């Protein structure tokens, strides 16, 4: 017990001075310091989540406009159309359509998912779950948020410049994204905004990686960390390695657009031209790891939640963690599968094909471990659990579609069809969407210290889960039938005309999904401001954040905890009074907890 004593005790890994180093600072008192320029990771997490949710709404509204145009081409968009598309009588014009799908993708990836899962839950969960008082560099943390705000400002401003926002797709392939394809400021501002968002992400990543390496509470080895922290940490590592590559692509694009360089332009007129494909290389060297950057936090959260709500230790915890590591490593060497149709050498293509398919092996291991975790568990179907099971389902379906795309002969047909759109929405959009809500509902009591309505949350789950599956599975079907992505009006083409009913069907369900978020919005706002006081540990789980009050005090832990168990200590036969055990909690009735045998399971 005296291991808890104040002062320079050393953790098992030999570092001393956890307490001297993590002083308890007095609570900030002014409004500005407390809510605006706060350096408290919990406040910054909330700021990121509010920002991300706002952009989720904007990006979602854009998706509705896209789907409206595909369902009712040439008809004015209802209600807000006459303001948004004032120049074209409320009709989504071709140029507006191109901007819409470009900005929808950009916003969802860099301004919705990234802030919510990485900026928000990365910030909230990492220090709390590893038993730290804050991030290791609080000032950097604050700057990271404000950099993201500046970047968001530039992005929003780009809608109002002459010739409108960027319109070269979220992938911004050259030469579409050079001055030839998209003159005007919009595309340049896109590049600047992405660069700044990248800086913000890198600041966050440096902070997260260092925090996990240096601030784990005594006793918490890497393999005692919750899988959530594993997911967030690996995401941060991938971010640190690959976001700079996107940054480089952005810089070169800015050079090309403003200083007249020729990195991405070539042609018979220019001797010694650059290479448009260079942009695709740089983009996908970043872009493929990026898809795992986005999904890894959700994987981590789901791996934990499935164990928490099955009341069982996560099956093969170490294997799960290590297969996430393996996926990260492999994700660095498969980017070529996005470029099969760019006249790459067949040998290289086959190499990328094999490597891509190998990724499915660790992905499958992860998936089977999830199955084994819930298998014969005493499941509690709470709202976070429902969302987690939803992630398992959509990721299972989406992951399988990846294999078709990885196969070159099939990809030659499927590339740039709605099959790809279905694939990445199933894996990325749907899985991360559901994963974000699993996280929001799970940590809501801790974050805001209030309870939300479980009934509304479950309603929200079904109103999200059913439409999401219908929408994106239908996209797989329509893509398999050959419909190309990014078409303004597919009905203009004889061969796509007969698909109009299916397009309309997808749109109907998309609108359902959009309005299905109303229970969430109502529930969220009502509970944040007027929910009942939440308990300290409403879900009865053992990770460290649940051993302190909800919401946690400014300095999180009065005493830095001394960790003696793994994160999923359920139904330990040595514990007779309850079915869970805190990570820093000694087995009730025994003198010391250090020599605990692993539970049979």
């Amino acid at each position, binding site marked *: 017990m005296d291991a808890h004593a104040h002062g320079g005790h050393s953790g098992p890994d030999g570092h001393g001075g956890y307490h001297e180093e993590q002083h308890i600072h007095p609570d900030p008192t002014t409004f500005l310091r407390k809510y605006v320029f706060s350096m408290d990771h919990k406040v910054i997490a909330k700021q990121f989540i509010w920002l991300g949710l706002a952009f989720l709404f904007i990006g979602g509204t854009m998706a509705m406009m896209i789907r409206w145009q595909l369902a009712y081409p040439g008809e004015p968009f209802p209600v807000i159309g006459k303001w948004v598309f004032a120049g074209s009588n409320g009709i989504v014009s071709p140029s507006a359509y191109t901007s819409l799908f470009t900005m929808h993708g950009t916003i969802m990836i860099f301004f919705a998912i990234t802030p919510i899962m990485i900026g928000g839950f990365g910030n909230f969960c990492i220090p709390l779950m590893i038993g730290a008082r804050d991030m290791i560099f609080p000032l950097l943390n604050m700057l990271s948020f404000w950099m993201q705000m500046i970047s968001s400002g530039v992005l929003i401003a780009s809608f109002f410049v002459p010739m409108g926002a960027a319109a070269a797709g979220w992938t911004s392939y050259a030469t579409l994204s050079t001055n030839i394809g998209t003159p005007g400021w919009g595309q340049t501002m896109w590049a600047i905004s992405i660069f700044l968002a990248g800086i913000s992400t890198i600041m966050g990543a440096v902070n997260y990686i260092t925090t996990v390496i240096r601030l784990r509470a005594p006793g918490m080895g890497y393999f005692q960390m919750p899988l959530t922290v594993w997911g967030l940490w690996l995401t941060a590592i991938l971010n640190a390695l690959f976001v700079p590559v996107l940054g480089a692509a952005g810089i070169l694009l800015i050079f090309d657009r403003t200083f007249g360089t020729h990195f991405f332009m070539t042609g018979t007129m220019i001797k010694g031209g*650059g290479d448009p494909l260079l942009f695709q290389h*740089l983009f996908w060297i970043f872009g493929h790891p990026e898809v795992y950057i986005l999904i890894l936090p959700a994987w981590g959260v789901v791996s934990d939640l499935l164990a928490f709500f099955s009341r069982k230790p996560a099956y093969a915890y170490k294997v799960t963690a290590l297969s996430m590591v393996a996926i990260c490593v492999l994700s660095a060497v498969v980017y070529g599968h996005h470029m099969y149709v760019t006249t790459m050498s067949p040998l290289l293509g086959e190499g990328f094909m094999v490597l891509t398919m190998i990724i499915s092996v660790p992905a499958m291991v992860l998936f089977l471990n999830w199955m084994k975790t819930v298998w014969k568990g005493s499941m509690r179907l709470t709202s976070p659990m429902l969302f987690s099971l939803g992630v398992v389902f959509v990721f299972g379906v989406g992951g399988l579609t990846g294999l078709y795309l990885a196969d070159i002969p099939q990809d030659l047909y499927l590339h740039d069809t709605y099959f790809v759109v279905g694939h990445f929405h199933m894996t990325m959009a749907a899985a991360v969407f559901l994963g974000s809500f699993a996280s929001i509902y799970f940590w809501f009591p801790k974050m805001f210290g209030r309870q939300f309505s479980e009934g509304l949350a479950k309603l929200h789950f079904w109103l999200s889960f059913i439409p999401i599956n219908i929408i994106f599975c239908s996209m797989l079907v329509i893509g398999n039938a050959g419909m190309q992505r990014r078409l303004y009006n597919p009905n203009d083409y004889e061969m796509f005309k007969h698909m109009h009913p299916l397009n309309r069907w997808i749109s109907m369900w998309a609108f359902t999904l959009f309005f299905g978020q109303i229970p969430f919005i109502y529930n969220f706002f009502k509970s944040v401001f007027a929910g009942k006081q939440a308990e300290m540990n409403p879900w009865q789980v053992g990770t460290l954040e649940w051993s302190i009050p909800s919401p946690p005090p400014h300095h999180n832990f009065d005493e830095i905890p001394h960790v003696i168990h793994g994160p999923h200590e359920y139904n330990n036969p040595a514990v007779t009074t309850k079915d869970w055990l805190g990570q820093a909690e000694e087995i009730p009735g025994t003198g010391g907890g250090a020599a605990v045998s692993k539970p049979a399971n």
Partner: protein
Amino acid sequence: MTALNDIVPFRAPRRRSDTNSFVGMLIFLGTWAMMFGALFFAYAEVRLKNAEWPPSGEAPLPIALPLLNTIVLMLASVALGFALKAVRTAHPGGLRLGLFGALVFGSLFLALQMVVWRSIYLGGLKPSTDIYGSVFYGLTCFHALHVLVGLGGIISLLPGALSGKFNVQRHASVRHWVMYWHFVDVVWVLMFVTVYVL
């Protein structure tokens, strides 16, 4: 004891928070290395696409002045290494000397770089001439921006060095800027080899 001290120079034990920021700085430099790595990738890619280099038959870039400049930048790094060693062995005078030296060499580097850009620009190679110009101006300007930031960093250290704020125990920010400069220096050497020599 003295014998041991002769072999292993004395170093004050590092505070935990210094190690923290050291680790953070290493990770940051790692990310930034990826950014420059991507730029070198771009260079390699366009080199592979162009059988002739320089492509439009223009004169290759000069080597003599840039080589001199490379040495100047290395001297800035050496000066900073000297400064770090001085603060670690409690020689505040050496710290000041090293920082001033680095400031002088760093500024000289930018001045000489200005001369190189000017003469090449007047010689007719512009960023928009062809990919040769794009690569040359794009990479060197982006690097020069980093030197500029590094100079700002040294200037930010000067008040502390002059007022004796840094001592054997507390000099983390000196160490970070020295790391940053070494990094910028290594990048420059690679850039010199690729952009000018090869």
